[in-house]
């Protein structure tokens, strides 16, 4: 197997996790017009959530995603009712600052509890070896879990009443309210789902790499790139864009030093913003 192909497969596997992380950001941004700056901190909390659960219940770590998602939903509701609901109708800067403050609170508490030292989830699944290259079981499981969660969200948004309500509120909040939808409840639900997705992606990352309470920041930046690539309010598009970003990383790394990757990613970010302001998947629904 050629090195480029191996690198691209590795890129796609990690790209699916980037995509899942971005879905949460995209959903909240698209539905509520809120740029959620707690995103990175919640990803880090997802990592520590997995760490704590795995320490208590050393079973297959991927089964522990369910309690992490449940805790993420609860945390999302708490953040929404304490710091987002009251500023949602004010200019966008208010929610930006409010979520930034929550981000700092989470990181502050996290640093006090866990310091900024690295932690590991010591769980390993058998990988697959093709020629000289081995693809780790954890990468494949994390990518598969990301796709399953993304599909579940897609089914929820398009096939269930609360999901349809979220899309209706995203399209036109006033019209949705006239149809009897409680937009407040829907916004709280959308925010909670966005936070749960971020926590789930953090939990998946924790099974791949060591992490600290500050690790979410890097994934938050990638989430912004992916969200802009996909266009706002297109959660499933975010997954596809995440995979594409991973594929791009995998395709270029054999030819350049890895330290150049952020430059390429953010170069792409600017190009997409300028040339495709609604993302590469066309018109945004928000």
């Amino acid at each position, binding site marked *: 197997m*050629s*090195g480029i192909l*191996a*690198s691209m497969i*590795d*890129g796609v596997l*990690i790209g699916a996790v980037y995509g899942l992380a971005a879905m949460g950001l995209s959903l909240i941004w698209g539905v509520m017009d809120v740029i959620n700056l707690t995103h990175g901190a919640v990803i880090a909390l997802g990592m520590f959530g997995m760490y704590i659960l795995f320490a208590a219940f050393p079973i297959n770590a991927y089964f522990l995603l369910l309690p992490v998602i449940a805790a993420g939903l609860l945390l999302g509701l708490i953040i929404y009712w304490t710091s987002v609901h009251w500023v949602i109708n004010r200019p966008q800067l208010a929610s930006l600052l409010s979520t930034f403050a929550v981000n700092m609170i989470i990181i502050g508490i996290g*640093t006090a509890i866990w*310091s*900024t*030292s*690295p932690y590991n989830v010591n769980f*390993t699944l058998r*990988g697959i*070896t093709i020629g*000289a*290259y*081995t693809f*780790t079981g*954890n*990468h494949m499981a994390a990518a598969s879990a990301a796709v399953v969660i993304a599909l579940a969200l897609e089914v929820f948004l398009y096939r269930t009443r609360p999901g349809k309500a979220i899309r209706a509120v995203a399209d036109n909040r006033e019209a949705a309210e006239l149809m009897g939808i409680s937009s407040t409840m829907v916004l709280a639900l959308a925010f909670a789902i966005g936070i749960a997705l971020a926590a789930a992606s953090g939990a998946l990352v924790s099974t*791949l*790499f*060591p*992490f*600290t309470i500050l*690790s979410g920041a*890097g994934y938050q930046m990638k989430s912004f790139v992916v969200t802009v690539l996909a266009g706002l309010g297109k959660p499933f598009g975010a997954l596809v864009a995440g995979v594409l970003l991973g594929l791009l*990383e*995998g395709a270029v*790394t*054999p030819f350049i*030093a*890895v*330290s150049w*990757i952020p430059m390429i990613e953010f170069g792409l970010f600017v190009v997409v913003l300028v040339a495709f302001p609604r993302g590469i998947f066309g018109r945004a629904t928000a």
Partner: protein
Amino acid sequence: MKRLTLILSVLLALFVTSGFAQNITVGMTVSKTGALNVDSLEQYRGFELWRDQVNAAGGIKAGGKNYKIQFVSYDDESNVKRVQQLYSRMILQDNADFLFSPYSSSLTATAAIVTEQYGKIMLTTGAAEGKTYTLGNHYLFQMFAPATEYLKGVLDALKTKDPKATVAFVYEDASFSNAVVDPAKAYAQQIGINVVFSERYAPNTTDFSAIIDKVIASKATVLLGGGHYADGSTLAKQLYEHKVPLKMISLLVAPDSDKWTELGDAAAGVIVPSQWEPQTAFKAQYGPSGADFAKTYTAKYSTPPSYESAGGYAAGLVLQRAIEQAGGTDTPKVADALNKTDITTFYGRTKFSTAANDHGLQVGHAMVMAQWQKDKSGTLVKQVVWPLAAKSANLVYPLH
């Protein structure tokens, strides 16, 4: 009246004793948090054990006085900016008489600017980069053998075992690892070892997949590099998970820690260039023997000392001896005593360059190469494998 006499005598006693018992304040920052915390904590334990033992023995005796050691230390968060603030604070507000360096070359380079600016002596340990000593400093003294020495032994061993080996350098983009690898590449070329791949990674890297794919594509048989604990342990783990068929892996710093065994099978066979190992038996002219140091350290901290711990303790010993020789804490006199130092402690020989172009650089200390090997019971044990004269076991080569 009785009460007044009692108060007066207590006050008098306090006054008299304070006249005799003096304190020396030694300042240092510790990376209690952040990427450097594992190695930094081990270094600090070395300082701490030295202080406790000196104080328990009545302090440093110099010029007819007894000096007790007190520390002032802060968490630098593995962060250069904090180091700059905190070294200024320790000198200006806490009135530190002497300073020990933080852990790592980059933090130490920053601390050195501050200590030199205020004319304070700093013994550096856990900091091997040599460039800092070429800047015309007068009060900076290095305990570690400089970075240029780190990979010489590994390359010499490779030349002996497998001169046709192909080497990949994968290393942290930080001042220490750059200072180690740049001369190592030149040395490899000089002795005819083929370098087929070289790439630096950002200090906070956690995903090495892309670099590992490139190492495999380069068909390298040996990987040399690493940086510090967080990145080095992650790199070793991922090399193992990706089943990269390497004959030798040598990483900087990380495998020296006892925590390394937490990596399980990924830890086995990995080599670390080391400043000191408990097996290296130097005949100490001053201070405890290596065995005594290792025993008291292990008893206090329930873990064996790493070379960072040994460097910390030895820095204390060398400072203590210089204060004794200077007959007090006067900075120029102690600096003069340090310039004249040429001593063997449990840690090995210590001698500082007094040349104007690299004043304070360590020129006496020699390094060894340690490898994690499984003993008969399957337990991971760190063995000295190079130089051959100091070995406690044979080098395991190839790994696969």
